[in-house]
């Protein structure tokens, strides 16, 4: 299996080429399956590689294929690295990716540009795999840019709608800001360590003394990249807008895989972050702020996908908090469980939207549980998982993050706990508003309510099972079960554990689990009372007042960016255009043109057309040339 890993990214690439080049010549019935099966192939190879890695804790599959870049003394090989960290990501990407591909076959069946959609989706998987597989920061950057491109293409998939195009551009530009940070970080890494290969860089970093300014700079710059890709404050505003894309895309790219690339990158560079405590604090702080803020905004959103988007941002914040407090394994654990339940939630949302004929406003839903039994049940599982109800996946990973935060700082723990409560509140609000109560949509919609086709429900069920059992990958210590993921990732993050702050006491863990369960029940009861018993429906947008209005308008962050960044830039560029470009540079350039024109107008008179004159001029010129020759 180890010599087959090059096939992992190549298969989706082949799928992309077939669907992309063939485009509309590929039969509709085939193109979806080509795309899905190519990802399934990668998944199977990944499982094989996983088996190989399981057997030997010290095994790292590293394969250099060819010399990629060579400039002066700098050479870089194009190589893949499969270790225990990347295999986890590989399994998540290809596994969840495969399910979402299958789901898309049903979801997109009415779409005209069927092949183009699957081509983009395959291309995304290819770049994502490249990002994870690369054995150097450069290759990671290639994947990093590639997934950004695919994200852009898929958000703007329905490019005839201008608002969607704007959302795509916004995502792209926001990501570019982050990419700049990543790029600068790479330059600094190269400057410091003379290489961009992981092995060399990390070996070099281990030799350095603790808390070096250059390491802080590198890690902060890399974190800027992660902010963009993983939608953290201040670069998070693109992610809610990215919901313009098809729903499976939101599930795959903007929930399960691409947005976790930032977390993967930080975990991969854990050696650097451990050596830079200040950066870790920044990471934790930004994550914390994002978790809280996105949670607050999520409370008052009425678009089913927007709620999920803000919940994604919030959960990503959780992950960054985990990274910041040094709990790298925990962050990855949450990436995995989050991939399961958030993909599930998005796909359920897709199923709901599908049934509602494109309607996304939860104020017009309600009572869908009878019409969509499978979707309802799986959505409930997803909600319980994200809210942190035992024994669902989110419970274990989130408790682990909270425990990690507790050992680090009580303040972080407190705020994070509030965010966790918020998660439960808005998720149950979403759940009750969508599936319980009376149907509030139009008559027409009600008649057409239907459960989704089997190609959509099967992935839902598989993901629901995964969301249920996914948490057993990492059981808390008190249950006296081996923490599988921790042990598995030991070779990768072992270095970081040397700097860990110790573990939370068993008493604390019992208290945490107990109190979170009690709180969850209270929340569910309260939310149930409000939205089901009292049949409260969120007010129309213009009737919302006070702080709720602020929340509904997402803290006016977009407006803030518009006023303080976009508008001044626009003013500056129109100034440059009108005054500097048109008034200054253009005038200089034009005046050269006018000068040439005028001068030639005068010189043209010499050309009288009389051949006799021409001959005399020629003779005189020849004489002058001879004279000149003599003088010299």
């Amino acid at each position, binding site marked *: 299996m180890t010599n087959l890993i090059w096939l992992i990214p190549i298969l989706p690439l082949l799928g992309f080429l077939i669907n992309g080049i063939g485009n509309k010549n590929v039969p509709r019935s085939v193109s979806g399956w080509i795309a899905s099966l190519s990802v399934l192939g990668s998944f199977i190879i990944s499982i094989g590689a996983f088996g190989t890695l399981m057997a030997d804790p010290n095994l790292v599959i590293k394969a250099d294929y060819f010399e990629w870049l060579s400039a002066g003394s700098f050479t870089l090989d194009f190589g893949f690295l499969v270790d225990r960290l990347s295999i986890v990501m590989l399994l998540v990407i290809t596994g969840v990716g495969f399910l979402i591909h299958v789901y898309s076959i049903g979801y997109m069946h009415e779409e005209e540009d069927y092949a183009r959609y699957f081509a983009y989706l395959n291309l995304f998987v290819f770049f994502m795999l490249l990002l994870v597989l690369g054995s150097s920061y450069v290759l990671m950057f290639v994947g990093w840019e590639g997934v950004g491109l695919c994200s852009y293409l898929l958000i703007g998939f329905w490019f005839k709608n201008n608002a969607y195009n704007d959302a795509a551009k916004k995502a792209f530009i926001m990501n570019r800001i982050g990419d700049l940070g990543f790029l600068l970080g790479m330059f600094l890494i190269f400057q410091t360590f003379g290489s961009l290969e992981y092995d060399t860089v990390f070996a070099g970093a281990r030799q350095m003394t603790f808390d070096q300014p250059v390491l802080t700079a590198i890690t902060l710059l890399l974190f800027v990249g992660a902010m963009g890709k993983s939608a953290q404050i201040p670069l998070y505003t693109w992610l809610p807008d990215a919901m313009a894309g098809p729903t499976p895309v939101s599930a795959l790219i903007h929930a399960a895989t691409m947005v976790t690339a930032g977390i993967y990158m930080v975990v991969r560079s854990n050696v650097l972050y451990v050596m830079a405590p200040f950066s870790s604090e920044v990471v934790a702080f930004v994550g914390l702020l994002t978790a809280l803020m996105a949670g607050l905004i999520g409370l008052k959103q009425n678009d089913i996908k927007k709620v999920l988007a803000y919940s994604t941002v919030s959960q990503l914040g959780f992950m960054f908090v985990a990274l910041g407090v040094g709990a790298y394994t925990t962050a990855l654990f949450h990436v995995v469980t989050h991939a399961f339940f958030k993909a599930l939630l998005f796909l359920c949302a897709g199923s709901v939207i599908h049934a509602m004929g494109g309607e996304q406003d939860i104020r017009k839903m309600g009572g869908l549980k009878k019409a969509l039994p499978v979707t309802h049940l799986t959505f409930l599982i997803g909600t319980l998982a994200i809210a942190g109800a035992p024994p669902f996946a989110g419970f274990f990973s989130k408790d682990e993050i909270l425990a990690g935060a507790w050992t680090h700082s009580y303040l972080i723990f407190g705020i994070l706990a509030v965010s966790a409560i918020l998660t439960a509140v808005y998720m149950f609000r979403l759940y009750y508003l969508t599936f319980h109560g009376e149907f509030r949509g139009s008559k027409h919609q009600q008649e057409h309510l239907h459960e989704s086709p089997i190609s959509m429900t099967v992935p839902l069920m598989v993901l629901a099972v995964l969301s249920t059992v996914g948490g057993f990958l990492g059981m808390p210590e008190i249950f006296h079960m081996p923490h599988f993921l921790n042990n598995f990732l030991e070779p990768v993050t072992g270095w970081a554990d040397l700097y860990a702050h110790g573990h939370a006491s068993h008493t604390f863990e019992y208290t945490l689990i107990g109190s979170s369960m009690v709180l969850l029940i209270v929340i569910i009861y309260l939310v149930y009372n409000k939205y089901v018993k009292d049949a409260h429906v969120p007010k129309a947008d213009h009737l919302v007042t006070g702080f709720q209005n602020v929340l509904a308008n997402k803290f006016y962050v977009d407006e803030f960016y518009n006023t303080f960044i976009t508008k001044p830039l626009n003013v500056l560029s129109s100034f440059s255009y009108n005054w500097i470009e048109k008034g200054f540079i253009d005038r200089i350039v034009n005046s050269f043109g006018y000068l040439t024109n005028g001068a030639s107008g005068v010189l*043209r008179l010499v*050309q*009288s*057309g*009389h*051949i*006799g004159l*021409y*001959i*005399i001029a020629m*003779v005189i010129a020849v004489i002058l040339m001879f004279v000149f020759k003599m003088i010299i």
Partner: protein
Amino acid sequence: MGSSILELVHINNYVMLAAILFAIGVMGVMFRRNTIIIFMCIELMLNAVNLLLVAFSTMHSDPGGQVMVFFIMAVAAAEVAVGLAILVMIYRNVKSVDIDILNKLKW
């Protein structure tokens, strides 16, 4: 004959003769307005050069110079054939061979 004219007459004389003939040719081109005469003056210039080439060829005992003259004659013959054809064409159109009438050669 054995002896060469160049032992009696210095090569310089030939150079001067050629220069004078060439200058006369140039002057003729500027002096006259009749296109045919101008054409003939050009032939005169060509012959001045030919003369010089032959003189130097003899001086260096190098047949290359004379071969070159041979080729120049070939080119001149071709040129005259085409040139006079053009001239007849012009005359047919403007009923004149006056070079000053041909003043369309401008922008």
